[in-house]
């Protein structure tokens, strides 16, 4: 009996070491993408994860698409559009013969229904774009969209258009629509959802009726998104060929990947930044009184060594930041003249504090208020959910020590920190943002209306407020860019919000699998998980589908041999011990 069990175990072990290669036997071309975030939902009215947007970008076409190079509006479902005299209404003409992936015709009705319903029900990913819009179907192929206020974002219409025939029955109200699982797989984009078995895997298949294929066979049959909770395992999966491209690579692994054959690394930027925020005092809870003095905030800004952060914590891969980056395109960030920048200079910082009268009157190494009371000790909030929050807190403590300011650390998780910011009972914290393509939302966070919500600095400024209202209705793109630059300069000079760096998106792909990756925006952007994910329709397999499993054959044979030998040894020892027992 025992012998049979051992043999069975050995056979089972041997069987397990053989990778199941049958998946590669049919000729399907499969693109496999790894990332480190799990998928919460497939429903675009409920989800918010970067990896989920990637799936919806593929399943749902939008009325206007965005150019890979510069996010300029290009034809999507709509082939062309015309503005009215007053610029409030746009008339979109759809492409000929559009159909959903299930064969139903895609008409103006689908677009009108999506825009008006998402506005009425407040769909989370649609509402900020559609809140002032009304859509009307002129005929099957023509849609008229009118905004109740001047809207500089038009004619861009980048909300996901969903199939009315599927969604109308499930979107009965705001709550019901978010509870829909959305596994119907009906879309108008190049790929549609085929399988979502658990939070770590999404399988999409090519939509043969997608207009962009122009009647030709799609070059890729399937895309699989696999999420790894262990980023090092994901990196390993790329080197072993289990994955074709990966995203969210640890900075420390990038140098190793660069040295690997057949692997190309990509450092992409789309505006995400990390910042140290100072409490501006507009909330109920107040900062240390010294922080209400612009000179003190300026001194703190001069004492922060951004280059050191990038070198020490990001292996030199991030871009140093001056002021906030409000959009995915770095053009929105104004050029702050070199002489006006807060370049790391602790001596100058000390001088500013000395001149303003903040002296260390009791000789304990910490400055006090000009009247000699209330030592300046910053209450710095450390976000436990951010990997870099602790090293940044350590660096901050060192920088502040150099200028005679104390730092007292306390930890919070994201939820608690959010609440703390609203209450205002802190002096500084470190966090980050990933902005949208349009700068409006990010800019709005420093207005009075966002106090008690997303006003991260508890800071307001009447001039900033005026300019914010102005840019919101400015229809001339050049003029709007200027206004935004002015606003960000005001924010920079107030020294309440100190962006440390523009965070890189670290990605890599195998050069022996697919070619045709494009960056969005051009030259600096990432190749995947960008705003409209343009790479996927352009990719083609390199020199046929190579079988990565073949190289391992000898290892597998060796593995089986090892297992058999071990099994044999175990058998032999067992037999010997039995005879020994019998002899006793």
């Amino acid at each position, binding site marked *: 009996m025992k012998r049979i069990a051992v043999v069975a175990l050995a056979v089972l072990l041997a069987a397990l070491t053989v990778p*199941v290669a049958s998946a590669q036997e049919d000729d399907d071309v499969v693109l496999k993408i790894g990332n480190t975030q799990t998928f*919460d939902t497939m429903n675009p009215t409920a989800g918010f994860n970067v990896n989920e947007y990637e799936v919806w970008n593929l399943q749902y076409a939008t009325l206007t698409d965005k150019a890979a190079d510069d996010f300029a509006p290009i034809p999507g479902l709509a082939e062309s559009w015309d503005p009215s005299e007053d610029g409030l209404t746009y008339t979109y003409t759809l492409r000929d013969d559009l159909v959903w992936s299930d064969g139903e015709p895609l008409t103006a009705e689908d677009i009108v229904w999506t825009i008006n319903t998402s506005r009425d029900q*407040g769909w*989370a990913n649609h509402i900020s774009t559609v809140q002032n819009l009304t859509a009307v179907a002129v005929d099957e192929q023509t849609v008229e969209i009118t905004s109740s206020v001047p809207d500089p974002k038009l004619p861009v219409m980048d909300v996901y258009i969903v199939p009315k025939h599927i969604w109308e029955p499930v979107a009965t109200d705001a709550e019901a629509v978010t509870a829909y699982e959305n596994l119907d797989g009906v879309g108008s984009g190049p790929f549609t959802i085929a399988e979502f078995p658990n*939070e*770590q895997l999404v399988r999409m298949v090519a939509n043969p009726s997608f207009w962009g294929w122009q009647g030709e066979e799609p070059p890729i049959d399937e895309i699989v998104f696999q999420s790894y909770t*262990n980023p090092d395992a994901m990196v390993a999966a790329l080197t*072993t060929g289990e994955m074709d491209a990966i995203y969210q690579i640890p900075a420390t692994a990038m140098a190793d990947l660069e040295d690997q054959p057949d692997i190309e690394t990509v450092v992409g930027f789309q505006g995400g930044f990390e910042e140290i925020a100072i409490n501006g005092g507009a909330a109920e809870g107040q900062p240390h009184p010294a922080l209400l003095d612009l000179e003190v905030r300026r001194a703190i800004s001069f004492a922060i060594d951004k280059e050191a952060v990038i070198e020490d914590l990001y292996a030199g891969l991030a871009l140093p930041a001056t002021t906030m980056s409000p959009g995915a395109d770095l053009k929105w960030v104004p050029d702050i003249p070199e002489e006006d920048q807060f370049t790391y200079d602790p001596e100058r910082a000390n001088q500013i504090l000395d001149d303003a009268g903040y002296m260390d009157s009791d000789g304990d190494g910490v400055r006090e208020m000009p009247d000699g009371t209330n030592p300046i000790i910053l209450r710095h909030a450390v976000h436990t959910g951010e990997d870099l929050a602790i090293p940044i807190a350590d660096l901050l403590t060192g920088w502040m020590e150099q200028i005679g300011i104390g730092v007292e650390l306390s930890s919070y998780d994201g939820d608690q920190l959010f609440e703390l910011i609203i209450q205002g009972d802190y002096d500084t914290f470190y966090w980050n943002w990933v902005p949208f393509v349009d700068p409006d939302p990010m800019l709005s966070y420093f207005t009075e209306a966002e106090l008690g919500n*997303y006003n991260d600095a508890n800071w307001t400024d009447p001039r900033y407020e005026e300019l914010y209202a102005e840019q919101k209705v400015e229809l001339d793109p050049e003029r709007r860019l200027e206004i935004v630059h002015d606003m960000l300069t005001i924010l920079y000079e107030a020294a309440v919000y100190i962006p440390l760096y523009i965070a890189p998106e670290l990605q890599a792909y195998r050069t022996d699998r697919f070619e045709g990756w494009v960056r969005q925006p051009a030259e600096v952007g990432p190749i995947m998980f960008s705003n409209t994910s343009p790479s996927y329709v352009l990719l083609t397999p390199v020199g046929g589908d190579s079988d990565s499993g073949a190289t391992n054959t000898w290892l597998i044979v060796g593995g089986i041999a090892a297992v058999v030998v071990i099994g044999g040894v175990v058998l032999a020892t067992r037999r010997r011990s039995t005879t020994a027992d019998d002899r006793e």
Partner: protein
Amino acid sequence: MLTLVFVLVFNFFLFRVVQTDPVGSLFRGRNIPQERLDELREEFGLDEPMLTQFGLYLRETAQLNFGYSYQSRQDVWGEISERIPPTVILVGVSAVLSAVIGTLGGVIAAWRRNSWKDHSITSGTMVFYSMPDFWLGMVLLVLFAVVLGWFPVGGMVAAGSGETGVSRLLDQLHHLFLPTLTLTLAYLGEYTLVTRSSLLDVMGEDYLTVARAKGLRDVVVRNRHAVPNALLPVVTLTAINFGFVLSGAIAVEAVFSWPGLGKATADAIRGPDLPMLQGLFLLFSAAVIFFNLVADLTYSWLDPRVEEA
């Protein structure tokens, strides 16, 4: 039962001790107008006073309605039950394997005390036991998945295989191997040590001398007379560990990207996804309580004296 009610109440307040606003933090940086956020707070019932929320929570839970997850917007019970099979397979299989192999190891070690077998078994299992399980997992992963390339680096099924039937099952076993090996190795030591010391206590007993005097073979003395009497502490340990099967293995699940309950807990804390956390903790507590009951019942079966007490 009383314990479960306590857990129920405790769960609710545990996550609300700190003043929090899940809607604000879940939707930070999501470009949603203020009015819509207020609507969401209302939808989640977060605008109600705490006591009203608590009343609602008790009523709904009593009807086995755990609410909707803030993150996925799906029914909490549905979300949890989806993740039970992966966890039970992974942690269950390794709990059984480590219990069986560990106990056998302990028996051999004790019976041949101070022999080379004892030394190698005890020190071998202790080495694995003293390693952090996630670290052991990483070492195995690097060795078997990266260097040797025999096993996949993570996940439950190979990406891109729309496989069904036997090949899918084999594929899953292939993915299951490394995490199971890690957990089994990590917990062997516990069983080996407990079994060994418990058996050593029993070995001094007179009835074993009697058994030997009857002329029974050594193996029979061991298996019939010594081991059953030494098993009580092992049963306790097994029951406790089985109670934690459902809690998953957060660290090892994370290392091998295994979509189980441990991973779900870690994700839910991020929000915090209150309904999901309440559901998970209730399930975990219920499992522990249930297996403790099972242990108590097994005692009286193994050792009739327990019943009298």
